[in-house]
């Protein structure tokens, strides 16, 4: 089950539901978390296939969450898509993330990328 989990960490409810819809179309099970601290705890329990990560999050920033994922051996296979409005910050994380999408993120683009990642 965890093999096809898509985790969406995004504090904007509308964007989160759009991202979830895209991942859903890529045939991933989806879970939405709106708080950075909650996400940090949850990432110790689950092994998602794909994470869609916003950078500006309450309590714990997306940048720290990305570091946490990269430092967790269990999450070695997890693919991270950064979805942010902050193009400058995104540029700095390009090396660590699997994909960087600058908001507004194209729904169909996200769906296609997620699909490719799931198959890979």
């Amino acid at each position, binding site marked *: 089950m965890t093999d096809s989990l898509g985790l969406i960490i995004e504090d*904007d409810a*509308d*964007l989160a539901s*759009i*991202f979830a*819809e895209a991942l859903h*179309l890529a045939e991933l099970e989806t879970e939405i978390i709106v708080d950075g601290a909650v996400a940090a705890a949850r990432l110790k329990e689950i092994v998602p296939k794909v994470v869609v990560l916003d950078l*500006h999050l309450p309590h714990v920033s997306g940048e720290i969450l990305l570091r946490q994922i990269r430092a967790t051996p269990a999450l070695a296979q997890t693919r991270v898509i950064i979805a942010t*409005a*902050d193009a400058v910050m995104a540029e700095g994380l390009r090396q660590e993330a699997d994909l960087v999408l600058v*908001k*507004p*993120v*194209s*729904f*169909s683009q996200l769906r296609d990328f997620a699909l490719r990642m799931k198959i890979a």
Partner: protein
Amino acid sequence: MNEFKLKIVERTERLLTVNHPDPDVARRGWLLNVLLLGLFVATLAGFWIGLVSGFATGWQTEGEPLLTIASVIGLASAVGLYFLNRSGSVRLAAIIFLLGSILLMSFSDEPAQLIAGRSTMVYILPIVMASVLLRPSASFVMAILSGVALLMLALTNGLLSALFFTALVEIVIFLLVALVSWLSTRSLEKALADLRVINTELDRRVADRTRDLAEALIRVQLESSKNQAILESIADGVIVFDHTGQATLVNPAVSKLLSLPSNQIIGYKIETLMAGAVAVGDQEAVLGQVRGQESSARLPGLRFQWGKKTLLASFAPIQIEQDTGRGTVAVFRDFTREAELENMKSLLVSMVSHELRTPLGAIIGYGEILQERIYGPLTERQANLVGRLIANAQRLVSLINDLLDRARLEAGKLKLQFISFSPQQLLDDLLSTTSPIAKAKNLNVVTYIAPNVPETLQGDPQRLLQILVNLVGNAIKFTDHGAINVKLDRPDEAHWSLQVSDTGIGIPPDDQQHVFDVFQQADSSATRQHGGAGLGLSIVKQLATLMGGSVDLVSAVGQGSTFTVTLPLNTPVEEKRD
């Protein structure tokens, strides 16, 4: 001893002086006083000699009483004439003295001796004295009077016939003496008069010079107090550093600005003043400007934090004094408020753009979900509306992006990458971005790469794409039929170029120079017709400039426009690794 001598001389001098406005009269009065002093001393001696020898001989001969009485008369006359002379009647006193001396001489010896003997020459004394005491020519009068006295003496003593010829010779001699005396005294007086003129001229010059100096001094004081007033009233802080780097002059504004009393600034070096209040990097920059006095040109301003304040400082070299080296005048402006405003502005821009982009992202996302018919089929009209919804939201997003770029460019915060990229990839990216918009207007975007363009270029592909998207987007906007041509070329060895041509409405010549200004479209009605706020071209220009290139425009109304961005060709440089 010396002091005592000086005192005596001074006393005597004061006794002899006659105060008179005419310097000649005063001089003659002084001379007369000297002669009277001589007479006084001589008669005083005569009086004592007469008295002593009279008592010694028991007053047997007639000589002693005569000498004593004559001495008393002489003493009295000397004192009387002295006071007459001191009272200012120098002339009268001199005449009386001269006449008296002739009279005295006429009785000083036996008549025969006086007329043609041992004592004749005593008459020369009043003749010479007259030219000195009265006037040069008075010696002739005195010579004649002496001659008359001589003749009278001869007549009364019955010696005229015997000594007439001798007396005549004497008178001629008297006249000769008078002549010599006249000549010498006259030239002396003339020399004195000349000297007085020279002295007067000299005095006048000294007075003039003194007055000039005093006036100049007053002027300088006025000027410096004016400068002082200016310095004290300006709002900017001013410190003047001398050639050793020490503060020598400050104004009240700088004390307020740096929260330091002026006595804690003057005499200190800038590095001492900055210690603890200014970041180390800024200290070095400020020091460089204070010391870098080689160039006489005004140095550019420097912005830095001093304690809690943001200061804008400018430095200029000045010559403080003739011989010492150059100093520096530093002018500090309080830039705290402006810096705060600038920070607030950029914060506002990035926040607003973030806050705007999030809901727009939601609108576009939901639109796409509808467009993809995930929630069921759409009628043609519904699909059309959803398409317009997305297109408008995307337009808003690109406008926000432009605003953000513009703000970053203005703040100098936009940083360019410098990496290798493929020109072909750049054009592919361009086509994937612009083709949908072009297709919507039934236009074709045609790309071409000249064969001499290298397969790999150096630069910022994202920003180059932005330039191309802006230019092509613009071209599509203003073109209704025809094609958009995009050409990558290499005009010369050191440059490569991006060229975007359209067959659109063109830009009138008068407006061509303004199209790169912010919020400017050639015709403001075009904005309404074609949309857009006119930020695109100003960003193209700024980006091209930032990359060390330039933008040129060739356009004809009704025929289309061609924008050419020319950029330096940077061949890949091997990165140095240790």
